[in-house]
């Protein structure tokens, strides 16, 4: 049965505007408000995780100088820092925050397809955050099993937080997954089914392609984490033996036997590796739009960029065991997973080349968002190259569980996505608030953060080559670690604390600019995508006033010859301005 698209029957549908304060700002079903709720919550927990990392660095840089950091707390800080940053900050911010804000605006829709479910998604996310943070206040504190939560140690006495911490952690993850599923179904369905007239998939801005594919990855990968959380909770609470082999603990034989710890690792990394791309793909997409807009140049190889995102998404499901080279799995697996891992370098390299070629001969405006975007190309290339080291089994074995790994994944999925987060917040801040942020402060924030992260992570590669193990509370006196490593650790700590404090500039900037910022106007970056063409800034409920936009061109008509402006918005008709759509290699 043919089904009439929403864009064709917009006028038949009644739009109800929320009237009371509560329905407008608290129990809001408006995707823009939900996006801001997601974003603020995520930044708040991210701040907590940042403070935790500062505490860890204090201990590592100046061992035993701080009586309030014991080995137990150190492990709890590591664990919570990792889990919060990966799941509750980055995943929530990219998909719940940017996904919610940008999807309906960029495709020319009035809202998500199921706004009520979207609202529930946020409130469940908040519940999961509260459950997670409550573990700081229970007996034994939060879990200290490391963010990978490997059993058997994660649920046995001797690991911090085995009283309640681990149960709360698993419960919090389960609730988060339910919340994500509700949001994620909305994002995917909205992108596929609620686009404006003329908005084909191949005219969508790359931001949406990144968010779209990342959401699909999330919908398919989070189930594995959900299942392993259920099973580990049963192991802990009900005494089952899914992941627990026969084991001696504290001199006693436990009642567990016959379980498979490796099974957990497989399930965890079947989620965990796509999770890397759940964080990275939205960053890829957003940064593409930032680069194109601020270089006044169409994105180089749009089609290739789309296919690369899809290829990376597909490949990310068959590389998970490269996290397990030292786990004791069948060594023959190593060959397969090393091969697939290295193949991912191909689409990734295509993307990096295309970003650089987008800048080539561009009219580059070094605004704050652009600085962050270019910074991302550096840190991502850097982190990607060390990934090639670690993807090879023989190179990985000596480097495994050293600071080289810490440096690698912080460069590639810590610093790089965070730079994009900052760049994107600065970029869309004028649309979200209607005010301009302070440009000077933004630039200072960029340079201190960018150079600071190098001061933190470059020396860590060296520590890794020396063989300094990660996750250790203190190094102690060992022959293979020279004195210089201790000095480096101090320098890393000082840089880390400095970079942490610098983030206050960012918070100050976005909070004070709310009041004091200059009015930004509807389209300060003179960008082509639909969200900049809304009748109101910030966009009102329903986004588009009386008429939905009609799309006539792709998202990258910058510097088109023969047009009086250097950008042509997507909703400008071909009668008014030439269409320069990229037609792919065959035309």
């Amino acid at each position, binding site marked *: 049965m043919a089904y009439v698209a929403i864009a064709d029957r917009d006028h038949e549908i009644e739009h109800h505007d929320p009237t009371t304060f509560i329905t407008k700002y608290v129990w809001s079903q408006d995707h823009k408000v939900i996006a801001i709720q997601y974003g603020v919550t995520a930044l708040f927990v991210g701040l907590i995780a940042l403070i935790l990392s500062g505490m860890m660095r204090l201990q590592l840089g100046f061992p035993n100088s701080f009586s309030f950091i014991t080995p137990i707390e150190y492990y709890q800080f590591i664990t919570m820092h990792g889990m919060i940053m990966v799941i509750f900050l980055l995943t929530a911010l990219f998909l719940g925050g940017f996904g919610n804000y940008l999807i309906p605006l960029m495709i020319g829709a009035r809202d998500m397809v199921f706004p009520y479910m979207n609202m529930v998604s946020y409130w469940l996310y908040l519940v999961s955050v509260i459950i997670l943070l409550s573990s700081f206040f229970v007996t034994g504190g939060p879990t200290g099993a490391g963010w990978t939560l490997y059993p058997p140690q994660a649920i046995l006495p001797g690991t911090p937080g085995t009283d309640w911490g681990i149960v709360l952690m698993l419960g919090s993850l389960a609730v988060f997954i339910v919340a994500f599923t509700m949001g994620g179904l909305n994002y995917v369905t909205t992108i596929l*089914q609620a686009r404006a007239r003329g908005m084909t998939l191949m005219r969508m801005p790359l931001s949406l392609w990144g968010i779209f594919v990342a959401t699909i990855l999330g919908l398919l990968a989070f189930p*594995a984490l959900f299942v392993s959380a259920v*099973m580990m909770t049963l192991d802990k609470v009900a005494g089952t033996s899914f992941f627990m082999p026969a084991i001696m603990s504290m001199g006693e034989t436990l009642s567990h036997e016959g379980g498979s710890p490796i099974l957990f690792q497989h399930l965890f990394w079947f989620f965990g590796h796509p999770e890397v791309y759940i964080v990275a793909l939205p960053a890829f997409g957003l940064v593409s739009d930032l680069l194109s807009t601020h270089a006044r140049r169409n994105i180089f190889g749009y089609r290739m960029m789309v296919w690369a995102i899809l290829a990376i998404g597909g490949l990310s499901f068959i590389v998970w065991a490269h996290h397990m080279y030292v786990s004791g799995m069948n060594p023959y697996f190593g060959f397969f997973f090393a091969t697939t891992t290295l193949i991912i370098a191909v689409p990734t390299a295509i993307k990096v080349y295309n970003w650089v070629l987008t800048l080539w001969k561009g009219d580059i405006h070094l605004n704050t968002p652009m600085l962050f975007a270019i910074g991302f190309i550096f840190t991502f290339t850097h982190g990607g190259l060390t990934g090639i080291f670690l993807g090879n089994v023989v190179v990985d074995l000596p480097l495994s569980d050293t600071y080289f790994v810490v440096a690698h994944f912080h460069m590639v999925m810590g610093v790089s996505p965070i730079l994009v987060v900052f760049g994107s917040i600065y970029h869309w801040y004028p649309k979200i608030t209607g005010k301009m942020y302070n440009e000077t402060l933004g630039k200072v924030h960029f340079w201190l953060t960018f150079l600071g992260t190098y001061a933190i992570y470059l020396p860590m590669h060296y520590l890794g080559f020396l063989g300094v193990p990660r996750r250790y509370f203190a190094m102690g006196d060992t022959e293979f670690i020279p004195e210089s490593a201790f000095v480096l650790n101090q320098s890393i700590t000082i840089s880390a604390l400095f970079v942490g404090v610098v983030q206050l500039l960012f918070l100050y900037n976005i909070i004070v600019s709310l009041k004091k910022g200059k009015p930004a106007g509807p389209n300060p970056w003179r960008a082509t995508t639909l969200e900049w063409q809304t009748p109101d800034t910030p966009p009102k409920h329903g986004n588009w006033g009386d008429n939905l936009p009609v799309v006539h061109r792709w998202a990258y008509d910058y510097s088109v010859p023969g047009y009086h402006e250097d950008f042509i918005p997507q909703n400008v008709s071909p009668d008014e301005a030439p269409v320069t759509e990229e037609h792919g290699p065959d035309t």
Partner: protein
Amino acid sequence: MSEVVLTETESGAVADFSTDKQTFQVPWGKAMMWFFLLSDTFIFGSFLTGYMTVRMSARDAWPVPSEVFALSFGGDPIPLILIAIMTFILISSSGTMAMAVKMGYRGEKNKAFWLMLATAGFGLMFVSMQAFEWTKLIVDDGVRLWSNPMGASQFGSTFFMITGFHGLHVSAGVIYLIVVARRVKSGFYDRTRGNYEMVEIAGLYWHFVDLVWVFIFAFFYLW
């Protein structure tokens, strides 16, 4: 409003997927249900993979399904008789569900209502028989979530976890069906543009739960 110019170079499947407005010519709810079921497939897939792994890693003997799941009606125990009936009931419920969808689209509200109730009834019977099966295992055979007198403790763990998770899906489906059935009866869908897609969407979920059962049946009872 000038006509929208689309790229003309696409062909075949690519063209189908890259049109403007909507990719699939289906209502939003239906598309979303498909994506949800895809995600749910990965949940059950992970559960069953975990089950197979621990069945291989378990050190103690795995109970023989044809003996554990046998039921005696006075004479010799008949292997898998209960589960055969349960499976038959669940598959039958898919049949009534399909007829309900048809009646919904035909606008025969009353028939659609009763067929949906019949489906929900079959579902309820299935869950009740599952409760009976659990009771037999727990009370008569002494199987627990964490232990199993007949051998590997993982038998009890995986069995209760996975059939329990599936049972929750069936129970949720029964509630879902009853809600939709009531709305069919009360004419709720006549007020919202008079379409009965919701019946079909509920049906998608129901068929999925049945399909999952086929896999659980094969892996737990026939292996």
